């Protein structure tokens, strides 16, 4: 449904987006991750036709955003960075304006506005000027605007920024509910959000895609993958640590809070060996937990690397 082909955007000497390609089929929620200034928003601005790419293009439902912008934009729902909306308008007028531009009028417009208002829960602020709304409501008005025409491709730049935990949960449920019929891209800083709603994650830094996979697959690249968290009476004893570290497959042992954390080498499971050792030695184990891996670890590892020097080409 959405195909990104070799997008490049440079601002003078600065290359903000450097040859980014990927496709998003229907039913996928793609999490777009990256540090600030990584090129996430710039990529989204190019996909939605706001910025013209320096090279490459995006195909939305078969329409090239460069050559068929109007047809392509009809299929996109877009929440720009910061959820901009006309501050003097009420959400009611604002959504009415968007509905008209999207080609709905009369009954149809009312019905569609009613549907998104209920979905996003903004009914109680429909007649207040947008500038007086809280950050969370503003964000939700922006999302409502993007959903009004039930687009095939949904591009949301930080849809949950400024929402409280309950609202975040609701927003994620809304996104999850829409997933089967749409191709969705969300950008976010929140890694737990990626784990909660995304079926795939792309990590981007310095304008380049550095990792692409399911959140679980990415988490496996973490040194916490298959690490074992262990609470033993007398666990800080140097002997216990040394014995654990000597086990085959164990990379490192660390103190973590009241207990220990045992990192495996290469992410291979070590929990069996640890349990055997504990039984043999007669340690009183009060807690034992295998970790799946942490996305934030992977994120930091990948994105904190120094900027790759540009190839001579």
């Amino acid at each position, binding site marked *: 449904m959405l195909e990104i082909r070799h997008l490049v955007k440079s601002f003078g000497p600065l290359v903000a987006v450097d040859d980014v390609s990927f496709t998003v089929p229907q039913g996928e929620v793609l999490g777009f991750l990256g540090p600030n200034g990584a090129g996430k928003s710039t990529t989204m601005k190019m996909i939605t036709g*706001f910025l013209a790419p320096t090279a490459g293009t995006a195909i939305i439902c078969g329409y090239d955003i460069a050559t068929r912008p109007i047809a392509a934009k009809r299929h996109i729902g877009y929440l*720009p960075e910061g959820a901009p909306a006309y501050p003097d*308008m009420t959400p009611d007028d604002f959504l009415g304006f968007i509905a008209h*531009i*999207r080609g709905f009028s009369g009954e149809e417009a009312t019905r569609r506005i009613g549907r998104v208002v209920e979905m996003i829960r903004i009914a109680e602020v429909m007649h207040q000027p947008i500038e007086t709304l809280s950050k969370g409501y503003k964000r939700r008005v922006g999302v409502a605007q993007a959903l009004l025409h039930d687009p095939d491709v949904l591009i949301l730049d930080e849809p949950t920024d400024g929402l409280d935990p309950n609202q975040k949960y609701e927003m994620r449920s809304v996104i999850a509910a829409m997933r089967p019929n749409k191709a969705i891209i969300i950008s976010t800083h929140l890694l737990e959000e990626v784990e909660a709603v995304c079926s795939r994650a792309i990590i981007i830094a310095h304008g380049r895609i550095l990792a692409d996979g399911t959140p679980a697959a990415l988490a496996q690249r973490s040194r916490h993958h298959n690490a074992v968290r262990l609470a033993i009476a007398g666990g800080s004893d140097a002997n216990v640590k040394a014995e654990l570290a000597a086990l085959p497959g164990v990379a490192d042992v660390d103190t973590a809070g009241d207990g220990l954390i045992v990192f495996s080498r290469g992410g291979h499971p070590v929990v069996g060996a640890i349990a055997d050792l504990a039984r043999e030695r007669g340690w009183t184990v009060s807690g034992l937990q295998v970790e799946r891996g942490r996305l934030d670890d992977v994120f930091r590892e990948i994105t904190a690397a120094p900027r790759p020097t540009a190839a001579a080409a």
Partner: protein
Amino acid sequence: MGNVLTIFRRELTAYFATPLAYVFIVIFLVMAGILTFFVGNFFERGQADLQPFFTFHPWLYVVLIPALSMRLWAEERRSGTIELFLTLPIRMTEAVAGKFLAAWCFAGIALILTFPFWVTVNFLGHPDNGVILASYIASWLMAGAFLAVGACVSAMTKNQVIAFVVTAALVFIFTVAGSPIVLGLLQGWAPEWLLHGVAQASFLGHFSAITRGVIDLRDVIYFLSIIVAFLAANAILIDLEKAE
């Protein structure tokens, strides 16, 4: 076409959503009144026409029209709504036309609200209402030209104050070029074609030509081409410099 109307409606409502519309209309009417009655010696002239009223329009517009046009694009840039606006399925021409027409229509409303002047002059005597109608049309056309310049300037900045000042300076130059002062300065030493060219390029010459009561097609075409040219530049500028 439908999109132009939708954008037009939103923009026109936006004027009335803030005190700008009311402040503008009140100031416009009060200043027009002061200039007509005190500076223009409306009564002392003893003639039943609105010439002292229309004479001051160009100068009134130099100060007031930039206040209408400054927000058109600068506000969208400042608040970031330009990104929302331009990713909707609309053509750039529709966006530019919708915004301009709303501002032009607003200027028309302000102009229509000067009808008490017309009532007064008709009450006091028997003016040539054809000339008055022609003058109103000329004034509105000139307002359109000012607004097109202003829209174009507004497209270049996200600062409304800058948009105001630059627009005011530009339209002042456009207007003053045809004034007797500037033409007098050129007279005597400048070649005839330059003198003629400067007078032709000025808003003032074309405006006063129509206010004499003759709607010459060339004057109308002059104002319309100024409008089209600046709106085309407006569209190009937005396209080139969307983000910043």
